[in-house]
């Protein structure tokens, strides 16, 4: 099975501070890879490296078999195929919901305005946000904002979706409305890499779970194994703490 995304021995450091030591990963089409691990374990940095928001110090990143970690590559062209949703939503506050969603399809993908609005409208109505189309982001609840952010990423029809702790800034009630979108996407066959602290959710969507600790993948496998029968002591310890925090 060919992988949409493949990482080989990726290393990333900020000065002396090595964030990712040696990360190798393969994400086959229509699968979801879930990154778990404590804050500071390198999950976000890994996603930012995949999205070329950070340059890596060693190793190779391949998208559909083509190397994208080459410095000479057109980063904009790569990012047209993989989009990222952030923990802090990062909607554009000066644009309405509809404008947020249609911006990239019009400006980057050369869609006509009518076409872009049509795509945006169908996505917004599918996820129950059509009535918010003309509102500015600050009028929306956190959960609504994050759903719009996800829709904004979907509107460009990405090959790969990166989700960086998309529910960490939300209260428990709002978490669910965001997660249900991601579940829908998963059943649509969207290829995803996501970092999350929601272990129950990870169990539901993950084809592979990777436990990161200090920049290396300590343990990986199906959720039923990593989350239910962790082999490594650190993984057990981490999951125990998560469990105590009431997130499992």
């Amino acid at each position, binding site marked *: 099975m060919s992988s949409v995304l493949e990482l080989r021995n990726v290393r990333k450091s900020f000065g002396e501070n090595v964030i990712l030591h040696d990360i190798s990963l393969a994400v086959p089409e229509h699968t979801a890879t879930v990154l778990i691990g404590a804050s500071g374990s390198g999950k976000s940095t890994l996603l930012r490296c995949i999205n070329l928001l950070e340059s890596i110090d060693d190793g190779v990143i391949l998208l559909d078999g083509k190397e994208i970690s080459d410095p000479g590559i057109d980063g904009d062209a790569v*990012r047209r195929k993989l989009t990222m949703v952030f923990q802090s939503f990062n909607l554009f506050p000066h644009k309405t919901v509809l404008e947020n969603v249609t911006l990239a399809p019009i400006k980057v993908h050369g869609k006509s305005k009518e076409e872009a609005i049509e795509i945006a409208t169908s996505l917004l109505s599918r996820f129950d946000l059509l009535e918010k189309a003309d509102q500015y982001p600050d009028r929306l609840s956190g959960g609504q904002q994050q759903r719009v952010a996800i829709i904004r990423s979907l509107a460009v029809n990405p090959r790969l979706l990166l989700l960086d702790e998309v529910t960490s800034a939300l209260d428990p009630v709002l978490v669910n409305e965001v997660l249900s979108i991601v579940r829908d996407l998963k059943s649509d066959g969207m290829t995803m890499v996501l970092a999350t602290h929601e272990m129950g959710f990870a169990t539901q969507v993950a084809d592979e779970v990777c436990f990161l600790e200090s920049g290396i993948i300590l343990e990986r496998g199906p959720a039923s194994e990593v989350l239910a029968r962790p082999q490594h002591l650190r993984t057990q310890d981490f999951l125990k703490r998560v469990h105590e925090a009431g997130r499992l």
Partner: protein
Amino acid sequence: MEKRENEHASPWTPSARELERRQVRRAITKQKIIIASLSSLIVIGLLAAVVVTSPGFQVVRQTFFDFNYGQVVIKTVSRGILVNLMLTIVASILISFIALVLALLRTTKSAALVPFRFLATVYVDIFRGVPLLLVILLVGFGVPALRLTGMTNSVLVLGTIAVVLTYSAYVAEVIRSGILSIHPSQRAAARSLGLSQAQTMRHVVLPQAISRVIPPLLNDFVSLLKDTGLVSILGVTDAVRAAQIHASRTFNYTPYVVAAILFLIITIPLTRYTDKALHRTYSAQNAQGEA
């Protein structure tokens, strides 16, 4: 905010406690009004008394506030202020354009634009550091002395150029500070959607930056209107110059006061209007209250 209809709640009538509170609030308001009026009366009364009883009051009234003379000069001074206004409008357009280019150059990361970024920095350093009056004198008297073919000798045009040179540097810095104030996460979001560096600037960073710096920009443009009075030194017959001509003939300074009032008539509504416009944009985009 979403409105939630609660069908189970009975129609609301204020409780006795609430009615009591309202009465207290009314009493407090009343008290505040009385205190404010008394205090204003005393302060303004004292000021007036000091001014009126000052030994030079009669002379000042005649030489600065001669109503009849004011009516005589208002026509020429108004014609002068139209020159200031025209100059301000033309200069504003040029300044906005040049300042935007300077600000973009100073924040660019493009390798090809490095020399321009350097030049823009030098430009801003120079024109922010030299007094406007000197720039006006240097341009107004220096440029004609070069005897360049095709170069105008019109003092109005040269004065405008001088003002534009200086203010572009100021305004560029204001816009640049706005650009730098936009959180990097906004760029990250735009870039991760595939927008290029330039598109990110054009559609995401700049619109937010500009609306954020509108108050300081307005400040600069009000300043600009006032500083157009400085070109009078080149002989441009603006409001200041027109008032000066009258005053030096009669040794009565009422024309200066007339000019000052005319400036205020333009600047005060301008400030108020922008405050309102600003409030509208912010309240549309920001539901976090105004505390």
